[in-house]
């Protein structure tokens, strides 16, 4: 469904992606992990042509993304953005109907088939009861559900999620990832999700791809990617990997040199290690 071949991209003189290749098949959730600035968001932006690629190729359902119009691209790949904007004054239904944009011509208004698609999306995300509420007044968890509903209404077979859980509490994180898994299975979507939380990624993804300084450092099952030595080299963080009591999946635990109980200046160790500026 999504094939990325030797993808290079840069911001001016700073190369951000250096020859990334990866595939996502239908019915599969692939987790894209890596430290801040490793190029995860840039990959999402390059695949959706929001920023140009320097060289390489992105194929969606077998077609080169550069040959597609923006609308045709949007019918193939949909994005749950990192900080979704929900503008003032629009109801949830109106926001979800915006997902139908790639199917509408300039002067065309939404019709019954668009309403049906929006309705399916609301039902699948459990947001039907919110339909007539104003979207900007919703809570963080509800907003994320609404954005996923909008993306579902887009009916694209490839779904990219850019940090879908980073602003959510643990309950909502599990709810969102559970929803993504379920949708992936029910609709046969190809899902690529960038995820900061390595344990969460291991729990919900079929495969993981570890990006380090714009290149794929490791790829494969969560077990094969989440190894302490790989994490140490990519994140510059000392961790140990335990087993999830229920699923047996890897659980990444930071081995902080500064315990949280220590007073003054002790920052709690964080799972994503090295912080080297803004997310790219």
């Amino acid at each position, binding site marked *: 469904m999504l094939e990325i071949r030797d993808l290079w991209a840069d911001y001016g003189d700073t190369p951000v992606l250096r020859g990334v290749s990866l595939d996502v098949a239908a019915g599969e959730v692939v987790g894209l992990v890596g430290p801040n600035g490793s190029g995860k968001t840039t990959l999402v932006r390059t695949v959706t042509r929001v920023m140009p690629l320097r060289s390489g190729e992105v194929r969606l359902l077998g077609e080169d993304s550069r040959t597609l119009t923006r609308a045709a691209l949007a019918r193939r790949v949909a994005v749950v953005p990192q900080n979704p*904007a929900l503008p003032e004054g629009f109801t949830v239904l109106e926001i979800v109907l915006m997902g139908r944009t790639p199917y509408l011509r300039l002067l065309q208004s939404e019709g019954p088939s668009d309403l049906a698609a929006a309705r399916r999306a609301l039902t699948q995300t459990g947001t039907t009861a919110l339909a007539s509420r104003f979207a900007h007044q919703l809570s963080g968890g509800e907003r994320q559900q609404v954005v996923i509903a909008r993306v579902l209404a887009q009916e694209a077979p490839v779904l990219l999620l850019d940090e879908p859980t980073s602003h959510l509490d643990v309950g909502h994180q599990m709810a969102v990832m559970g929803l993504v898994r379920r949708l992936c299975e029910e609709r046969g979507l190809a899902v690529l999700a960038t995820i900061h939380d390595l344990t969460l990624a291991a729990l919900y993804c079929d495969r993981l791809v570890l990006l380090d300084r714009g290149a794929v450092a490791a790829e494969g099952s969560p077990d094969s990617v989440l190894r302490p030595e790989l994490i140490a080299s990519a994140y510059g963080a000392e961790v140990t990997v335990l087993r999830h009591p229920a699923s047996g999946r890897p659980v990444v635990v930071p081995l902080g040199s500064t315990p949280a109980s220590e007073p003054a200046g002790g920052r709690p160790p964080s799972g994503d290690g090295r912080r080297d500026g803004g997310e790219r």
Partner: protein
Amino acid sequence: MRRAQTFPVPDPHTDALAGEEAFALPGVRPLRVPLLLALVAVLATVLVGASQGSVDIPFTTVVRILASKVLGLGSATWPQTWEEIVWQIRLPRVLLAGLVGATLAFSGAGYQGILRNPLADPYLIGVAAGAGLGATIVLVSPVPYAFGTLSLLPPAAFAGAVLAVSISYGLARSGGVAPNVTLILAGVAVSAAATSAMTFLIMANHQRAVTVLSWLLGGFNTATWQKVGIVLPYSLVGGAAVLASARILNVLQLDEEEAQQLGVPVERVKLLVIVAASLATAAAVSVSGLIGFVGLIVPHTVRLLWGFDYRRLVPMSMAVGAVFLILADLAARSVLSPSEVPVGVVTALCGAPFFLWLLRRHRRAVF
């Protein structure tokens, strides 16, 4: 413990309860009644505007004069001078005010939509200063600018406005993209340059200062059918372009990147709306001067009354803008009758307090 946080499996009963009314399509359909009422309001305001003036003509006579001129109904039982006053002086004035009001309002809505800035108005990226400079050059030059009914003033103001917006947009654009903040900053810089050039010209030709300033403040006291004819094509085409972009403008409110990922060619839409709104505004400014605040306050008033959907916002702004400026012009020519207050003073008097209130309401989200 909080298992309820897993997304609820949809229950067919609550689904049905959410109701059909919640699932009405947004956009055009709920618009018909308010739009019809708005049209009636515009026509009523035109009649009221045409029936008021220094010469006392009964309202029914005004209606009959208009009916006979427009529809060919009835026969003339009124003095010829009344007919001339209504048809040659009042009606073009009222129609021009309505047309300019509608144009400034839909242009303001369009600018607010593409720049996603609640404080944007049609003058933000250079139209006003460019038109002002163009008009000033013509007004202070020793060459006569009017030949009978032909005046160089409108084309000069128009050219200045278009040139200024083109420079702003050209400066802001790089690599096929014109980021909003850069566009606004470029507009501010171009406006500042044009305004200082204008000020210099006025100072150097102070004997013409009053002429220039009275043009800048704007007004419809010299309205003619010819001026209506100058503005009309630009307003129609520009208005149609902004109306056609209304659904896309909704999507743009998400975020430019998200709009692109929904298949919207963002830069093309921005360029289309900028060209449409700027040309229409330039045409309006060229015949009426710089009438402030209409393009700012009308779209916001419409948002408060009828919501944020651009498919409602754009047409309702046109109607409200027309009504507002006809009434403002009526006030401008009645308050100190027989002398006139510049209509820009009236709109600013209504608009400035509103603007301040808006600023307070939006102070956390200006950019």
